[in-house]
């Protein structure tokens, strides 16, 4: 009897085991932060997550999907808009971040309000200026749709949607959004070489930017005050809103620089449209305050050629394969 029990256990665990080809940690990268033991990736769950991600059914009036503000062609952000807009053209208070390498991210949102990738989708689903829905109504709606009954059945062995399953499926899709094949990565693997301008840009990057935008993820995932002047219309104090600790005032999440060519405009409020403006900010517009990052307390001096070289290096972080990956594309045609 005991032996039989063990056999069951092994067979059941194997059937729920993660499919290794869905998530591969790139060579020399740190271990992912996401805890896969509670949500092992499977093909059908990732697929359900992808369908949910692109479906405007998530919003109250079926107009806004996750992809509305996180489109694949812009490395999953909302380009051309400083502040992202949602339902009924409502304008939000922040620039939507790019969804890249989320399995390595400790907290979510510019202020780290969200502590786990699974819970992230709840915020835009509920926010009045984004999808203006609530998870209970959404799950009820999903349970009336034939396609979702099939997809939930395939993914979880039960056609009934719940909040937990819905959120976990969205996480599954998001976890697969790995960008690790930019020119930078190929140069590191000695498959390609940098131009002399890119080499100089990389050298300057390592000197001035690398502490916060640490390789290979190009972020430490920490929060920092990078010397932006406060926008008195938004009065956004960032991390302070969450921790209520004055030492967190004006600190925002350090974003990854991967695919930065595609993710304009820049900063939490999208105030800079071009990378050249970002360079100018770091060299001559830093606002001093108590919480300013120690790395920025001393003025950074760069010649205009040096700025151009850094930008040339940053463009080597563009991963076209990631942006055009068919696995991440809208599955609309497949299901209609």
């Amino acid at each position: 009897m005991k032996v039989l029990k063990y056999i069951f256990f092994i067979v059941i665990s194997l059937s729920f085991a993660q499919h290794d080809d869905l998530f591969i940690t790139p060579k020399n990268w740190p271990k992912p932060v996401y805890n896969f033991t509670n949500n092992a990736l499977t093909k059908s769950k990732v697929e359900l997550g992808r369908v949910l991600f692109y479906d405007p059914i998530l919003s109250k009036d079926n107009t806004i999907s996750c992809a509305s503000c996180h489109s694949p062609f812009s490395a999953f952000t909302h380009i051309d808009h400083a502040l992202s807009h949602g339902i009924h053209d409502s304008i939000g208070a922040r620039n939507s971040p790019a969804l890249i390498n989320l399995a390595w991210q400790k907290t979510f949102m510019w202020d780290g309000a969200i502590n786990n990738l699974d819970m992230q989708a709840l915020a835009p689903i509920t926010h009045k200026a984004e999808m203006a829905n609530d998870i209970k109504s959404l799950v009820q709606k999903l349970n009336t749709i034939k396609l979702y009954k099939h997809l939930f059945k395939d993914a979880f062995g039960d056609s009934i949607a719940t909040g937990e399953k819905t959120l976990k499926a969205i996480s599954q899709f998001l976890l697969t959004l790995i960008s690790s094949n930019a020119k930078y990565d190929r140069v590191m693997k000695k498959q390609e070489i940098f131009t002399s301008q890119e080499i100089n840009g990389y050298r300057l990057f390592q000197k001035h930017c690398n502490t916060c935008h640490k390789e290979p993820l190009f972020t430490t995932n920490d929060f920092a005050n990078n010397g932006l002047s406060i926008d008195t219309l938004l009065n956004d104090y960032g991390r302070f809103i969450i921790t209520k600790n004055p030492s967190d005032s004006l600190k925002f999440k350090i974003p990854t620089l991967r695919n930065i060519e595609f993710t304009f405009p820049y900063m939490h409020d999208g105030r800079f449209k071009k990378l050249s403006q970002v360079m100018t900010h770091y060299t001559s517009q830093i606002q001093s305050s108590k919480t300013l990052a120690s790395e920025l307390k001393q003025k950074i001096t760069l010649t205009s050629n040096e700025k151009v070289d850094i930008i040339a290096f940053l463009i080597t972080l563009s991963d076209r394969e990631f942006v055009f990956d068919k696995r991440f594309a809208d599955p609309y045609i497949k299901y209609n």
Partner: protein
Amino acid sequence: MTNYKFIQIIKQLLGKKYLAAVVFLCLQCAVLNSQNKNEIKVVFQPFFGSYPLILDSTYVFENGQIEFSTLKFYISNLQFLKNEKIVFKESNSFHLFDASNIKSQNFTFTIPKGLLFTELNFNFGIDSLTNTSGAMGGDLDPTKGMYWTWQSGYVNFKIEGTSSLCNNKRKEFQFHLGGYQFPFSALQKISLDVESKNTLVIYVDVKKIMETFNLSSIDHIMSPSSEAVRLSYLISQCFSLK
């Protein structure tokens, strides 16, 4: 997992051939187990002073009136103790009490027969590890309306209603108490002396809870704060054995 789902999985794994044998063995195990077990029922009963609390009923309160539309809270990590030692601990112990759902007010535990206990311990709220572990099901499913969306974390305690004592135009009050991060961790431990009986009734005095608030000056709290921590502690003192 329901029996049906379990059978479905077994069926897929082994084919129908072994199904009868497996079902038989499972049933036999269940029968053997139940002979050495005892069922303990823990009931949470909300009262307003000496009256049972009924949602949407009007009660006299201080120099005015009060009515409740919502009362929900989490009870977790239930433990039975004897002489300060844990004798039984419920695994995966999370219960959402909801005044609008009578079923949510009784929890049944199966403990070994003859087990004696003198103390019942439980948490009022959700611990920090659970708060950071991602999406959960059952009573912890975010569709239960007890999870903040703009900032991660469970709402440990939710009470809403109207009172003539409130100073806002609609006379509404709304308290969503929670928070798991230092220094605003709202989780409270409750320990009650009990007798080894099969039914334990815990009295939740909502009048005493409302007396800890000062409705005329504060009629809502909806985020983690030191005030939420202070109130959570005071509310934890309003649970007693009937």
